[in-house]
């Protein structure tokens, strides 16, 4: 009984991770501009991969696997925003202007 409850929790985490990965793909394909795509990819991609790691932590129920899954989630949560920020900064400096920017005001970045 208890194992079935844990199996359902893990199944919900795994399916939610897959759905978030699908949402990240839809966002990257459909959104209109580089910076909005970056928002979809970094947030939804992080949550998708993180939820699958939560799923394997619940399924394995082994302290070493749980520790590795937590390590993976923390590592992912630290690195994904940093890489998205670096890419956005490089793109801004390379002259990619975001959509709906007020171009009359001179902005020096």
């Amino acid at each position, binding site marked *: 009984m208890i194992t079935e409850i844990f199996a359902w929790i893990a199944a919900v985490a795994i*399916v939610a991770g897959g759905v978030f990965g699908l949402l990240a793909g839809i966002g990257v394909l459909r959104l209109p501009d580089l910076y909005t795509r970056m928002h979809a990819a970094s947030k939804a*991609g992080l949550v998708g991969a993180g939820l699958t790691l939560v799923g394997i932590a619940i399924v394995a129920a082994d302290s070493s696997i749980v520790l590795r899954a937590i390590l993976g989630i923390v*590592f992912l949560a630290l*690195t994904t925003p940093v890489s998205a920020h*670096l*890419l956005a900064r490089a793109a801004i400096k390379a002259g990619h202007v975001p959509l709906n920017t007020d171009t009359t005001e001179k902005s020096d970045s």
Partner: protein
Amino acid sequence: MSGAEIITWACWIGLGCLSLGLLMTIVRLILGPTLPDRILALDLITVLGLGFVVLVAILTGYYLYVDIAIALGLLGFLSTVAFARYVLKRAEAGR
């Protein structure tokens, strides 16, 4: 349904969703009008591949794959940083 069956079905549904997401990301990688778009698509491909590896680890029972997933995350982060530096250097050189 028993616990193992539930988890197997959930893994297959998750693998299907992740495959569709990977397919859309690859379309963006091919279409991508600018270089940062393609770098972003590559970054998302590594993150979705991480989720894929974790789901395969649950399906096969080889939990050693979690280490490979962490290494893949590190590789994706470093490659994105390197590509961002490349874009930055190219913009500074062209100015």
